[in-house]
């Protein structure tokens, strides 16, 4: 039975890894989409920017798909409750994301400026909106969602669409946008040059500062947010449902884990160090280092939320005792074990060929290359 407990925790950690992978890789491409119209003033500059991430956006997007698939497989009830409860938000996220492949693939297929302009705006929407929603969703998870279950675990969501755009959630959403812009800029610096490089560098500095301020504000807000704590629940190692526990709420509860384990403070520190040093490296034209430090700061930000909430994953505001946790929302032991087997085999393989793809496509992209290549975006 202890195996089951370990599997639940391992999968919770893996969810963190997937969310970080998603934020770093998809966020980078979405950041480029968000700033495309500003970082590239001419059509040729914009094409260079798109072709910098062109070979990778599709592969990167799979982090997002895999994140969704892993939540489905490892925490079916969270996938079900969150995706159905946040129906309108999920649709906006989906609709803004499904125009993105078309933006990349179709934009440069026709010469017309109106056509290209329309796709540039589409790429802005499909970069900005998903990252805003991604951050806001995490912010709302910290606040809790209004849902409850029937006896057979059929879920009911009683909140409104507008309530999801509360000040705290918007703050988190903007933090996520700022970090994605940072990563996009770092990538444009690595493979771009000239005016594109200069503007990316300038924007990177600003987005790093914005992220630092927003993250700090979020932290200062934490003691006033009503968090959650478990009063009593079944043994974490056994199979259970969300109907068997008792949960309490209190202001500042999300700081409990940090107070109990001070070593956890290193995680938010990681975000600060990453952002500050990353900004410094970028200003000194160390763009690859700036990219990696940006990734570190994403790890710090997402890790901070995880550390604060553990073991909660999706708390309920209306019936706190049916809050979904690592212990009561996981799949069965057999499913978690099989999935872990596949992850252990395939994740290193994915990292290996992804790195290879980046290595093959290394080096600066120039406007002349883009013009000459019939396959370019």
């Amino acid at each position, binding site marked *: 039975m202890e195996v089951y407990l370990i599997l639940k925790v391992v999968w919770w950690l893996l969810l963190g890894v997937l969310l970080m992978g998603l934020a770093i890789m998809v966020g980078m491409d979405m950041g480029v989409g968000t700033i495309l119209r500003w970082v590239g003033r001419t059509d040729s500059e914009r094409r260079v920017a798109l072709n910098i991430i062109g070979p990778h956006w599709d592969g990167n997007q*799979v982090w997002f798909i895999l994140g969704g698939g892993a939540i489905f497989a490892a925490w079916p009830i969270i996938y*079900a409750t969150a995706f159905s409860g946040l129906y309108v938000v999920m649709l906006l996220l989906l609709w803004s994301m499904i125009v993105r492949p078309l933006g990349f693939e179709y934009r440069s297929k026709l010469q017309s400026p109106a056509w290209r302009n329309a796709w540039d705006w589409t790429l802005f929407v499909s970069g900005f909106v998903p990252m805003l929603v991604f951050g806001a969703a995490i912010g709302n998870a910290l606040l809790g969602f209004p849902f409850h279950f029937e006896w057979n675990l059929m879920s009911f969501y009683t909140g409104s669409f507008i309530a999801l755009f509360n000040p705290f959630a918007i703050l988190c959403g903007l933090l996520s946008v700022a970090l994605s812009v940072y990563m996009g800029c770092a990538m444009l610096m690595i493979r771009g040059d000239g005016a594109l490089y200069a503007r990316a560098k300038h924007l990177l500095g600003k987005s790093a500062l914005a992220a630092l301020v927003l993250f700090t504000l979020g932290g200062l807000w934490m003691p006033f947010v009503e968090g959650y704590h478990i009063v009593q629940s079944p043994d974490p190692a056994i199979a259970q449902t969300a109907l068997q526990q008792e949960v309490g709420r209190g202001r500042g509860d999300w700081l409990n884990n940090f107070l109990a384990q001070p070593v956890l403070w290193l995680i938010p520190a990681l975000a600060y160090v990453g952002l500050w040093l990353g900004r410094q490296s970028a200003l000194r034209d160390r763009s690859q280092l700036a990219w990696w430090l940006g990734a570190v700061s994403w790890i710090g930000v997402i890790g901070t939320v995880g550390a604060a909430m553990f073991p909660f994953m999706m708390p309920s505001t209306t019936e706190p005792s049916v809050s979904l946790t690592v212990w009561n929302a996981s799949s069965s032991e057999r499913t978690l074990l099989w999935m872990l087997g596949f992850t252990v085999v395939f994740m290193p393989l*994915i990292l290996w060929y992804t790195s290879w793809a980046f290595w093959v496509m290394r080096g600066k992209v120039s406007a002349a290359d883009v013009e000459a290549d019939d396959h370019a975006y």
Partner: protein
Amino acid sequence: MIDPLVVELSRWQFAATALYHFLFVPLTLGLSFLLAAMETVYVTTGRTIYREMAQFWGKLFLINFALGVATGLTMEFQFGTNWAFYSSFVGDIFGAPLAIEGLMAFFMESTFVGLMVFGWHRLSKAQHLAVTYLVALGSNLSAVWILVANGFMQDPQGAMFNPDTMRMELASFGELIFNHDAQSKFVHTSIAGFVTAAIFVCGISAYYMLRRQHLAIARRSFRMAALFGVLSSAGVITLGDALGFVGAHAQPSKLVAMEGIWEDEAPPVAFNVAAVPNEVEMRHDYSLQIPYLTSLLVTRSLDQEVPSAEAVIAESKERVRNGIQAVAALQRLQEDAEDSEARAQFEAHQDDLGYGFLVGAYAQDQDPTLATPADIERAARDTVPHMGIVFWSFRVMVASGLFMLAFFILATIYTLRNDVQNKRLFLAFSVLMIPVPFIACEAGWLVAEIGRQPWTVYGILPTWMSVSTHSVSELIFSLAGFVLLYSIFIAIEMYLMIKFIRKGPAPVEELPPDEPAAVPAMAK
């Protein structure tokens, strides 16, 4: 309470978005392998015209691929957004193949498709060829895992209901992935993709030959696709027959609808070539039959029982009554997990739990334990899917399949004789063939999915209960959004596709009209 209109609209939305997604998938599955084949010829023979071919068809591949990726995202979201109870009830089993699909297949396909497009000048010939093969392999591996997931919905193997967690849980991973339905359906579906791509390439090449343009590429492409197509269409029919045979035993109610058998008949049972099913009176208003053939196709014998709608309904009635006992016991177990009497009652009837859920749609307060005999009657009647749709979709699919096989046999003969470019009428006909495989694919999915009704997971979870607890207005909003967005998408896609087909491949040195095109490697 679940609003029946929400169930109806959720079904429409899923059907519309899934069928739409599947307009793009088959071409990806098949064309990726055709691209790999063309490039193989280029790499092994060094003839650059095959590189031009791979690059030209590659461009059309990508226009299609982008929409396949985009609309696939919708499918991943939609289980959670619109089928929440389904997702939490069977996610322990169903989620795994979807996640593994991402890990094993979709990552590979998507990472390498980037290199396939951008890597022509950066990779060696052999490396680029390997990349193209990985794209083809990745997209087809994707199909494996998606169809493993779908196979579970058709024939739920390897899973058990756990009353302590109130959901279905994985009992055997091996049984899940080696599910017969999934295995034969994967091969059937993938090869259907090959057929689609072959018709697509033949049709467009024929268009060029009619206009006497790009002959060097058009003739070679036509020949490769015709050979690819003749093998694939023979394969798709064989596997389709195998799938029908497997499905007949796992899902008698689907079989009954496909074959149009209302009443019990002593074997051998005749085959309905055509029929006008009357759903209300449960008989055919008209039918045209071939004696013995259904027995031969379904049981491979003349004396074994063939199921009928009448028999399916009679059995369901019994199972609904048992299922109500199971639901009642489960409700008691939820209040007191230690209630051993309730547990014994549940264990005695748990195989019919889904049938208990089924009658909830009609029972007072949607509580199966309050079902009246009339409710049970209605629920049992529902276990035979809409015969008209399933029966005719099945015939459309089979007829298209046979028709395409005939087309490819002719195409192969003409192209091997080297005079296809002179068969103007046949070429015009080839262009008109382009929609046929798409119609066949869509019809096939209608058979598979409408034929599974009234279940999302056959015999385990009824469709009405699988939905999310939304309001009607939320569904109208989302459905309207999808219709609007998807209409714009298809208009853009068709516009670009036609534009790039008209534009054709980059000019290459044309062969003199009489010189035969070299026989590609595949033909040897």
